[in-house]
């Protein structure tokens, strides 16, 4: 994987169920417009993305890739209650906002961009899969710059709980974004690898074979438990662990937020992020911070 340079980054972590007026205040640090008809998910998307590009002028054809586990879950609940409990037609904007791509629409409108505009999801690996699509577009020459982010509202009790390792992480809102371009000049970091594996053995084999390039820090996705993490540490012998889930809390887009935090806070270091989905597929991201 070459030529995916990070030119700016953000990682917003918010308290679960915080008043949306507080989120609007946060957004006003980066954007002066009055945003109507926006919900928590859209506000989170705007906060993270606007913080990310703050101080940058971005090209008109910049693409937007929003990766998410749950999307606009909140408005889906509201609309179901409007129909089934209040016995009403749903309010138009609640219904429109059940479609999660309204967040990327408001973002593109606010930034004045007219590039590719996608909202995608892939159980526990949404951010990694989003990067796959971004690389496809860059290779095809369909674009020269992109904003890619992971956004999720604090996940609700029960949602995904059975599969996830429950180590007492606090539930948070998260919005982590990366402004990426193919050129090295002016970059603060780079995505060096984005690899997918059918199982742990295939992933381990690749890690053993790449031996010549040691990593400074490792981090693990939500489904990798303590015992398994020990096996990876043994194989990789990193200088340190970056336990972003313990440190910042969990949301569906914790990986994007955690990697964003790493890029912000660890200049000169490299990170190997190992993640897996419930079917046992693995995805490894390597990030280098300049």
């Amino acid at each position, binding site marked *: 994987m070459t030529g995916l340079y990070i030119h700016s980054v953000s990682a917003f972590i918010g308290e679960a169920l915080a008043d949306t007026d507080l989120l609007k205040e946060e957004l006003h640090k980066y954007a002066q417009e009055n945003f109507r008809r926006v919900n928590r998910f859209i506000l989170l998307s705007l906060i993270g993305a606007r913080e990310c590009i703050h101080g940058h002028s971005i090209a008109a054809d910049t693409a*937007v890739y929003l990766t998410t*586990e*749950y*999307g606009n*879950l909140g408005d*889906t*609940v*509201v*609309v*179901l*209650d409007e*129909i*089934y*409990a209040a*016995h*009403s*037609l*749903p*309010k*138009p904007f609640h*219904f*429109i906002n*059940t*479609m*999660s*791509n309204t967040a990327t*629409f*408001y973002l*593109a*409108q606010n930034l*004045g961009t*007219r*590039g590719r*505009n*996608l*909202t*995608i*999801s*892939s*159980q*526990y*690996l949404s951010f990694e*899969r989003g990067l*796959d*699509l971004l690389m*496809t*577009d860059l*290779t*095809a020459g*369909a674009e020269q710059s992109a904003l890619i982010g992971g956004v999720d509202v604090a996940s609700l*009790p*029960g*949602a*995904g709980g059975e599969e996830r390792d429950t180590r007492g992480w606090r539930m948070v809102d998260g919005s982590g974004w990366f402004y990426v371009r193919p050129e090295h000049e002016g970059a603060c970091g780079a995505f060096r690898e984005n690899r997918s594996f*059918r199982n742990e053995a295939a992933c381990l084999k690749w890690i053993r074979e790449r031996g010549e390039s040691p990593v400074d820090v490792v981090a693990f996705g939500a489904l990798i438990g303590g015992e398994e993490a020990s096996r990876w540490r043994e194989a990789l012998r990193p200088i340190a662990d970056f336990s972003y889930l313990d440190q910042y809390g969990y949301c569906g887009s914790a990986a994007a937020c955690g990697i964003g935090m790493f890029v912000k806070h660890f200049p000169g270091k490299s990170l190997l992020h190992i993640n897996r*989905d*419930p*079917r046992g*597929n693995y*995805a490894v991201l390597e990030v280098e911070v300049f």
Partner: protein
Amino acid sequence: MQQGAFVTGKAMICAIGETPEQIVEAVRHRRIHLAHLSFPLAGLPYTRPYYLIMRNEADRPENRPDGYFTEILFSTAAGAIADAGLSDIELGKTHLFFGSTSMDVPVFEGNHRITSASVSDIFLRASNGYGKIASAVMERLGIGGGSYTFTTACTSSANAFLYAAAMIGQGRLERALVIGYDLFNNLGFYGFEGLKSLATSTYRPFDRQRDGLILGEACGAVVLEGRPRSAGDFRFLGGANLCDTYSVTSHDEEGTAVAETMNRALGQAGIAPGAIRAVKAHATGTENSDRTECAAMRLTFSGRVPPVTCVKPFIGHTVGACGVCELILFTQSLKAGFIPATPGFREKDEGCNLTPLTENEAVGEGIFMLNYFGFGGNCTTLILSNEGGRA
């Protein structure tokens, strides 16, 4: 041997049939079935038409058993895999691209009939993220590889197809199963009525008397591979996606953003507008959307618009599923030797100033454009070809 991305297998179920052959025959002879559904939960004194899957009484929304959602989904996915003739080893190296608007909301609405819990409670307890449906298909059918779930409103499965094809074309993937699926749900039916977008009786895209869209339900699946399996397998030549930031629910009526999408797709395919033999329009039948699309086609084709067909009057607006489902309906009709007429069209609209085909038109091989638009300003164009397939 040609390289690229080829549609090597397909399966579909919708209001007019449960096999591509049935669907094409219904399209050829304009056999259309419209149900009329009411809004009992909101106590409204009228009905609106809907294109329901209605093979028998068990298909009625109120009769649908637990597991109906997955039965339709798994059988359609399995049908496309069987049509392509994929082996178990090939399935292990297949990736899944899924596009939907309603996702698993019909499941939660269905559960509501059999428990006393509120729908939103069921939804909150059980919802497991957008990616869950794709994972279930992969587990059930033994599909390996990664999964990509697209939630871009009405362009969802069109974008799923666009990226699957692009990734195969670049050699990133060997093979993909692309699914578009939206099943009847009150959230969508009541939601679009709240937007006053639903037509009252007949679907008439581009017509002067059009009065909105008619929703439909469908599941469509295609297998995409780097090499054709049969002569005449459609090849993906190029495509594009962009965001028209004019409004979250409507487009700039000048059509510039939509035209730009078509032009970028033509550029990616490396062909001139004049090479397009026919266009499958998105044609929702709503006031603004139809005017915009027609303006965009006139811009793109410099006034010389090729034959245009609107296929929603056959199966309804299947929202997130329409990308794959309309692709199957359209390409299978082309394979059968005709470009479908547009049922319901009677009178040209001055604002649209475009007459779609009103009779089936005989067609051989060619290059075809398929357009899709959705809420959130999402615009997607695909260019497919079956030229040279028999060479």
